[in-house]
């Protein structure tokens, strides 16, 4: 393998290219029209345009990406996360074109892409699953039968899409009477989102934690598991903060959890990197949830505590190399790591997306800090894609030090011109329940609901005084320099983002769902 095409954009394209460069491999970028000047294009050895801005006309075009790989003479394709990373047709198209797909086989993607098939594989491997239906419920299964099955499983019950993800086609039902309408709604949502309206039922666990296990599996039968990741800090089913190890998993639980994850992968002949997701109930019992057949957004926290480059190992495995890592190294946490996903969104306006020109960007560094990003001063964050700007990762000898370092890095992080979720993280990392490690997957939504409307940037009253002094000086100096003191547009001239606080009600957008296909 000499040259790799990266079928992605943004931070993950940059991340994969860095691994390629470390390994002496040439890189090929693909880009849509608005990404012509993007970081991943400038960073690559070669770059090929693949079409207009909407993802389905560029980053989701299998034919154009395969053509680009052929034209550039690439040997392999790394799909990143989101876009085509879990698309079995893409993996198969790569194989047919004689290209190495850096990921599992098309067959493994298909198997794990079906939530019910993945559940059956887990059951066969002796791994506990959340009680539910083992077979998918097709559109012609009568309501009465479904109600009977639900009663056997026990209420409250979750109605979920077989092809699902990201909360789409998902309903919580408390009683048999509410089930038929929830089934109809879930089917229509799943049909629209995934083109597949089959659903299944699962018991709803109360206040579960989301804990997952990173795996590496080679083509010679070796499957290695890493220390678990704790991903329970979620906003509307989307992970916001991830960390490793989990504050609640004991060494005995870790041993059982990681061997269960490895057993699921081994039983289906899984290869390359993957993640097995589990739910933890309040009694500390774990249940298999699903398998993600890609590198995940939060992979850096695992890299920080194991010292392993997971993307480099994806490439080495795809080359046919044997996993020579020690199982002990991957299962012994070396310190603690936390990741904050920094999004171009305005936490003070209900996390409304905030695309546009970044007029100034300063990224933190120093002991234990890693920033996996793609934006720079002058980057225009487009409206077409996931608004992830960077992942800020902090490593420490223990959890308190990792949190202290993250808080220090957040103080140094400055993104001007657009709004970001950074002020939210400063607030989040002061929450007593977070510091105590006491949370579950609905914790953040409940916390935000109770919180009220105060701006996240108002968390420190002494800074309000500093801000007032700074604004006063800036205006006086502007006035004496002859600049008009009357209101003027901001440096980027985008009046759309210049709404004042008092106008916020008109902008109080409420996020309903995010399309999982574009998320890691």
């Amino acid at each position, binding site marked *: 393998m000499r040259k790799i095409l990266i079928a992605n954009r943004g931070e993950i394209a940059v991340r994969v290219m860095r691994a390629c460069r470390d390994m002496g491999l040439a890189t090929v970028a693909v880009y849509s029209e608005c990404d012509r000047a993007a970081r991943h294009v400038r960073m690559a050895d070669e770059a090929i345009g693949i079409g207009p801005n909407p993802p389905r006309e560029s980053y989701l075009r299998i034919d154009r990406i395969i053509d680009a790989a052929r034209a550039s003479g690439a040997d392999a394709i790394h799909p990143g996360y989101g876009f085509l990373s879990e698309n079995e047709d893409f993996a198969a198209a790569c194989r047919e074109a004689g290209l190495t797909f850096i990921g599992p086989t098309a067959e493994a993607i298909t198997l794990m892409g079906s939530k019910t098939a993945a559940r059956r594989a887990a059951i066969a491997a002796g791994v506990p699953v959340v009680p539910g239906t083992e077979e998918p419920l097709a559109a012609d299964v009568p309501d009465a039968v479904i109600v009977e099955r639900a009663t056997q499983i026990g209420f409250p019950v979750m109605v979920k899409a077989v092809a699902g993800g990201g909360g789409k086609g998902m309903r919580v039902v408390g009683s048999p009477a509410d089930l038929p309408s929830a089934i109809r709604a879930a089917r229509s949502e799943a049909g629209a989102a995934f083109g597949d309206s089959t659903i299944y039922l699962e018991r709803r666990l109360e206040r579960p934690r989301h804990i997952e296990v990173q795996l590496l599996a080679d083509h010679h039968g070796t499957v290695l598991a890493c220390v678990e990741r704790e991903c329970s800090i979620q906003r509307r089913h989307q992970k916001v903060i991830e960390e490793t190890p989990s504050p609640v998993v004991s060494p005995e639980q870790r041993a059982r959890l990681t061997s269960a994850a490895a057993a699921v992968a081994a039983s289906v002949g899984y290869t390359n990197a993957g993640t097995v997701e589990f739910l933890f109930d309040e009694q500390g019992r774990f249940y298999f949830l699903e398998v993600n057949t890609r590198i995940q957004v939060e992979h850096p926290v695992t890299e920080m505590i194991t010292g392993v480059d997971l993307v480099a190992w994806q490439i080495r495995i795809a080359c046919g190399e044997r996993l020579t890592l020690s199982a002990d190294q991957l299962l012994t946490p070396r310190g603690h790591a936390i990741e904050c996903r920094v999004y171009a969104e305005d936490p003070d306006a209900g996390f*409304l*997306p905030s*695309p546009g020109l970044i*007029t*100034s960007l300063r990224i933190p560094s120093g002991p234990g800090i890693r920033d996996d990003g793609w934006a720079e001063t002058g980057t225009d964050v487009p*409206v077409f*894609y*996931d608004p992830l700007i960077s992942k800020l990762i902090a490593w420490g000898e223990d959890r308190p030090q990792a949190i202290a370092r993250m808080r220090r890095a957040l*103080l*140094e992080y*400055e993104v*001007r011109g657009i709004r970001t979720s*950074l*002020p939210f993280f*400063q607030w989040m990392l002061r929450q007593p329940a977070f510091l105590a490690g006491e949370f579950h997957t609905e914790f953040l939504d409940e916390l935000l609901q109770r919180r009220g409307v*105060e*701006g*996240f*940037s*108002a*968390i*420190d009253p002494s*800074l*309000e*005084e*500093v*801000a*007032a*002094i*700074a*604004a*006063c*000086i*800036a205006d*006086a100096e502007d006035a004496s320099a002859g600049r008009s*003191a*009357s*209101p*003027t*547009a*901001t*440096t980027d001239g985008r*009046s*759309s*983002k*210049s709404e*004042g*606080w*008092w*106008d916020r*009600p*008109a902008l*109080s*957008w*409420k*996020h309903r*769902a*995010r*399309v999982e296909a*574009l998320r890691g």
Partner: protein
Amino acid sequence: MTCDLETQGGRRSIDFRQRGSVWEMTLDGRILSVDVTPIAGRRSLLIGPAGGPVRSYEVAVERRTNGERIVYVNGLAVPVWMVDPRERLRRRGNVSAETGPRSIVSPMPGRIVKVLVREGDVVAAHQGLVVVEAMKMENELRAPRAGQVSTVKVVEGMSVEARAVLVTLA
């Protein structure tokens, strides 16, 4: 000179006098001395009472419309509103925001997923009006105040530009 402004914590008035790089400021009856040094679009501020401890801050101030300033300090983006006599009517909390016709505009380019109201509907404050898909998310645009829908300018499936008027309230 005097500078009137508003922060999220409330109204503030600052009296100030500049002598070279040092600004003498009076804030809530306290006298502060602020040493100001510019560095490439930012300012270093050393703030202290005369003879007391000096606190160091690095700030950047961005001008927005309607007198809004965003002050970047310690990783936060703190909004401040300059109070100008000509703008006072538009101040936060002023009743003018609650009455008169109001246009609901799309804050960014997107696609109309669902129109939740019809012309003539009476809506409550914060009631959903239109669902727009932008940046891969479905977002519900809600009424800034109670009122009657006078016009609906979009239909489901339509693409809209940033600042496009979607609905007007009478």
